[in-house]
């Protein structure tokens, strides 16, 4: 159902988008992604679906990743929003750099959202295993890359970020020595079965390690 548009019904919102303050009257039903793209011309954030499945529209809202197609612009009132266009001031964020270095994009339509989700993932887990990256990016779809190089890129960015953080190397969380692309114990269904008890199923409904829920 499409919400009936009320002419003249607007709400004043104040946002900071990629470091620039904005003040604008918006329709209450205006989606954040349409506010960014239409009202502000920040077209780096794109729309790939209408059901919050693809994640192409992911931005950081006060530091947390959200799908901007599922947030109303008025909900972002008073918030600080970062899009892929404001992620790095002039240069490239380590995640952006790693995407390029590792050929983690082809057509690039999912890339803005994928990068923003990865940035959030690495804030939460600075040293994710391959499986944790896969689980952590579950809300973002890519049709081109088969994800292999995206996973590689995110882990490379993680290493880069850890190396540049003010943490001495020996204090960093333990790394995951597996070589990307090789099968490892964590790929084995046996591991899942053994760790899930005698009557457990392998239902994909069960939250996976690292899975996060956010409204």
């Amino acid at each position, binding site marked *: 159902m499409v919400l009936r548009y009320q002419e003249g019904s607007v709400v004043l919102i104040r946002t900071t988008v990629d470091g620039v303050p904005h003040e604008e009257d918006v329709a209450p039903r205006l989606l954040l992604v349409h506010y960014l793209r239409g009202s502000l011309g920040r077209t780096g954030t794109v729309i790939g679906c209408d059901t919050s499945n693809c994640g192409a529209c992911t931005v950081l809202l006060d530091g947390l990743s959200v799908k901007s197609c599922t947030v109303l612009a008025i909900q972002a009132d008073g918030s600080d929003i970062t899009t892929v266009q404001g992620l790095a001031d002039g240069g490239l964020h380590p995640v952006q750099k790693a995407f390029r270095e590792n050929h983690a994009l082809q057509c690039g339509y999912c890339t803005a959202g994928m990068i923003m989700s990865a940035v959030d993932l690495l804030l939460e887990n600075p040293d994710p295993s391959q499986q944790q990256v896969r689980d952590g990016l579950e809300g973002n779809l890519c049709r081109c890359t*088969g994800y292999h190089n995206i996973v590689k890129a995110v882990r490379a960015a993680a290493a880069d970020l850890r190396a540049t953080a003010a943490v001495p190397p020996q204090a960093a969380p333990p790394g995951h020595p597996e070589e990307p692309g090789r099968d490892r114990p964590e790929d084995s269904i046996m591991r899942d079965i053994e760790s899930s008890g005698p009557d457990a199923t392998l239902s994909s409904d069960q939250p996976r390690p690292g899975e996060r829920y956010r409204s």
Partner: protein
Amino acid sequence: MSTQTGPAPTRIVGQPLRRKEDLRIITGQARWTDNLAVPGLLHMAIARSPMAHARITRADVSATLEQPGVVAAFTGADLAGEYGSLPTAWHVSDDLIVPDHLPVATREVRYLGDAVAVVVAENAYQAADALDAVGTDYEHLPPVIDMETALDDAAALVHADKGTNRAFTWGFTAGDYEAAKGRADTVVSRRFLQQRVMPAAMEPRAVMAEPVPATQEFTLWSSTQVPHFVRILMSTMCGIPEHKLRVIAPDVGGAFGGKLNVYAEEAIALAVARRLGRPVKWTASRGEDFQATTHGRDMIQDIEIAATRDGRVLGLKVALTSDMGAYLQLLTPAVPLLGRYVYPGIYKFEGHDFFCQGVFTTKTPTDSYRGAGRPEATFAIERIMDELAAELGMDPLELRQRNWIRHSEFPYTTISGLTYDSGHYEAATERATELFDYDGLRREQAERRQRQDRAQLGIGVSTYTEMASLAPSRWFGEHGYSAGGWETATVRLLPTGRVEAIVGTSPHGQGHVTTFSQIVADAMGVPFDDVDILHGDTEVAAWGLDTYGSRSLVLGGTAVAEAAQKVVTAARRVAGHLLEASPDDLEFADGRFSVRGDPDAAADIRDVAVAAFTAHDLPRGADPVLTAEATFDPDAFSYPHGTHLCAAERDTRTGFVKIRSYVAVDDVGRAVNPMIVEGQIHGGVAQGLAQALYEQAVYDGGGNLVTGSLVDYLVPPAADVPPYVTDRTETPATTNPLGAKGAGEAGTIASTPAVVNAVVDALRPYGVTDVPMPCTPERVWRAIHGGDQ
């Protein structure tokens, strides 16, 4: 005369250079069609049929015009004079039925999503709102869903005036199948179902049309992989002289065949822009895109293979029924035709029977989807080879080795009449089995079976080949295709020594700018960063036949290389004049012309560029413009091949399947940029695997697309696909000077049978001989427990 600075260029073809395309994309500066705007832009929304099949008894937009912001609204009848029928370019048989297909239906709707009215408003929200006010009444007609019962005499008709739902039939016979079968000890028959899938490029389709009312000139931006096709066919369809229509494919967010078409919305946007004298834009929602972008596959494959008891294949019989959907789009009937030739795969048969029929149903039209016909064919042959191996009690790799074309036998003409120019199946298979630890996994499988483990292991094999670089114009002509298959490029050496190459291919993720820059840089001895590639705009790249069928590198890349060579030849003449030597006495290496035997007498190609441009002192008759065009039309296809191996673990209690390891060794000939090739394989494998395990476009009995959103249509996320181990063997193609074969479709073609073979192999001890795709946990569970599929 300046001298060259910096290190001498080295050969960069073959190097995994990072992509030039990426910087704009990773910083959010790409130009997707929906990002574009022009002054005065209006927004268009399309009212679509909510049912599969109905007569339109009323279409009324008068109330729509009263809605806020609405500028105009049109019914099908209002626009019927603006354009002709959407075209089908491939007439696969004499009996082909081509129904009328107007962009907006006027009398009857034939699939859920068929356009019935168009609303134009000041903004997209208003246009979407006003759709509610479109008044449409329908009289139900029976939906036609099942493609087999659609062929019954009593079946309801999709196109009543055609008298049948059968779109075409054709057959093909080579050798003597029945005689081969007569000599066989074993005959295995299977029915495989190629479920309907959706390309699901991440960027939904979008179109923007801008008119110049005074001159009736138009610019059309479209998220398409075929801007040149769109220009020619929209010109004809909408009555816009070709030279008055410019088509631009800006950055295109994936396509996979779903944008290899000439679509209703392109014609509607042009018609509305012409009618209103104002620019309009339409962007599909995901739900709309799923209804109004062509679907793929959807075939029933009856296949029979005859062999001796020691595992020598003799005959192959194939009968296909292929769902066209409601209308024929650009290449709809050609998809099974493109598959026809590769049903024999890499094996040597003595007899082959082939029959195919196309069927109309009240569903979204099908058309190309990554591989177009060849994935279906490869699935059928590679699945039945595994079934035959099981029947004979033979290892499936061993069976393949006994029957494949040996390296020493190339070139080899297969039973279906294709001459494979090169290949090395032994080498690819040896490398794949080594990376996979084939023997080790077979041992583990035996142990698990012995122990009756809850987790059972299945191993799937796919030794595929395909016909790629869809081109030979002569072949196209012989097979009823309306266009040629050549590709063209123009290379120009600019006054400052930079180089621009204009290409007729139209990338949407394949990295043509990077790959073609590598080719030009090597050919002309200029730095990679000094080269740019222009594409996707018919005003810039006037000629071209676009990107599909793994053709861009083989055809476009060759044209680029040859055009660059021609520029070097023209520059050589100028250089000879500058160096006071005969051009024939010059050597050219790393961007420098030098006099043979006198290396100090040399001129950099950039100096030649300046000399030519100023034209102060040129040899008589020499052209100051250093530009050249080249076109390439090969005599034959190329044949990528490879060996993919998949290990799947299956939980016997729940039916859950997990890919444990996946090894892909592909031979795509010479790789210009191995990083890009590997990426193409990764993505292709994931897409084929998704068909095997997750995706299906489902229609209910009433013709409703139940998988109408990404909630229900399961494009897998990262957690649902495995890492891949990839490697390449390199057996150059002999049918083009680059030795390349094309890599865009190989992964998709190879992986679907590898994965399903692994799933079925895990279930063999239960007597299971097939699991229909997608092999969901429920279907696997039912296969084990003997339930209905």
